[in-house]
């Protein structure tokens, strides 16, 4: 228990500290790196409360994919940070308001916490699984693909639309681009591309 308590306070402190550093650090690359640290410690906190599936997904999706792309973009930009920081205090009230709104949403979510739990338990009972035998990967799958199936599909559709949108925005037809056609290359035969010449010694071709 003591080890867990120590772990919790360490992870929580590092999460908060690195969250602050994301905002205040001068270099945008450092900001992204601190963001990654914050993600990582949040994942560790999830592990501590026994939500190992969410923790791993957090690391895979946010740290492994999203933050890499962030880092890509930020590293390639030549940002003058001192100029960017000038408006820091002007934007502070708006930022604080957004933060307050998010906090209010979380508190509201906590207020109705557990009201969907009976449905979940019912879903498990109807699937014939004893509640003790459920690890949380299975629990999430069981609920996600039964009770919340349509919501799950809709969120998938939203992502698909976003993906198509990104492709449409960046797709352009450039004339005169010479592309390699792999199938053509693979179908070339030895006869049409290569001639074997027997060169007589000291005479040349």
């Amino acid at each position, binding site marked *: 228990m003591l080890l867990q308590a120590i772990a919790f306070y360490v992870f929580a402190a590092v999460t908060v500290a690195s969250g602050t550093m994301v905002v205040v650090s001068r270099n945008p690359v450092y900001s992204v790196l601190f963001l990654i640290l914050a993600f990582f410690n949040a994942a560790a906190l999830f592990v501590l409360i026994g939500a190992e599936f969410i923790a*791993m997904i957090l*690391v895979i999706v946010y740290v492994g*994919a999203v933050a*890499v792309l962030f880092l890509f973009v930020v590293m390639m930009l030549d940002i003058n940070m001192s100029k960017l920081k000038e408006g820091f205090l002007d934007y502070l009230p708006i930022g604080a308001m957004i933060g307050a709104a998010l906090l209010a949403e979380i508190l509201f979510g906590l207020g109705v916490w557990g009201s969907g739990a009976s449905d979940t338990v019912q879903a498990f009972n109807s699937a014939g699984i004893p509640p003790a035998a459920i690890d949380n990967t299975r629990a999430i799958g069981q609920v996600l693909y039964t009770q919340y199936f349509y919501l799950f599909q809709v969120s998938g559709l939203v992502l698909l639309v976003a993906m198509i949108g990104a492709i449409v925005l960046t797709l352009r037809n450039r004339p005169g681009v010479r592309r390699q056609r792999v199938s053509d290359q693979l179908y070339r035969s030895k006869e049409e591309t290569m001639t074997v010449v027997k060169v007589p010694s000291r005479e040349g071709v």
Partner: protein
Amino acid sequence: MDAIITFLTTHWLGQAILILLQCLAVTVPLLVSVAYMTYVDRKVWASIQLRRGPNVVGPFGLLQPFADGLKLVLKETIVPSSANGVLFIIAPMLAFMTALVAWAVVPFDDGWVIADINVGILYLFAISSLGVYGIIIAGWASNSKYAFLGALRSAAQMVSYEVSIGFVLITVLLCTGSLNLSKVVLAQSGWFFNWFWLPLLPMFVIFFISALAETNRTPFDLPMSEAELVAGFHTEYSAMTFGLFFLGEYANMILLSALGSVLFLGGWMSPIPFAPFTWVPGVVWFALKIAFLLFIFSWTKGTLPRYRYDQLMRLGWKVFLPVSLGWVVLTAAVLQFGGWVPKP
């Protein structure tokens, strides 16, 4: 003796010490095998090219890895004056560390695993997706165009091939019904043709090729293609900082081979499930399977030329991604309609 055991298993300090000891028990053999992997690699290339390979230091050149290591330790670590000092030093540590922490969930034998967690496969996937940070930070912190280009290439390559590795993992997950690596191995018990390499052969091939790309090995070693980028992301690194990248690369190779043998070659299982073969400890079978996959790694490096960058991306996104996605759907359909869905 009993007092020590009670202390180690019940007291919180004892548990911490026990965890530390377990980590050492995995890390030390791993580092020795990393050292000897460099030796074996060079020997295999040498015999492919009809040379002798390292044969001067020690009998059969067996002390060569230690001589190389000593040389790297004793050399001066140079930090370029325009580099970002802190990140420049952190990057190789990250690259090396991510290759080591993943071993926490690898089962060496029945019950021989440091952390027998329920999401072992996801943990491995998460850690292997972190490996890219060491490289990308190294490229940026070096403040050099070759290093940066190499890092960008490498990051794009690793992100692309992780997608198909993810689908391979999902297929195996469908067939076992568990994310726990020990259960994945136990689901493959029996003869060697019960292991997943045969029913999931296309996925095994995709997994192996993606593993080559993931570890930046030939034919996908574009991040460090000498002719274009000097040495890629570690151009500016010297001495032990370079050594850590090098060790990390080999540790990653061994890790992916271990993952391959857990997922497809039955982990610690003996290939023939009766007496004289089952007497051999599971660790030995596991090591043999890893060694077999590592040999194919070296063999590939000795045989194939390097891919061009657009070919690499085409292979990842236009061939492996659709094929592996299709195979996931096919496997799910076969399991569902054949009535073979694994029971929890």
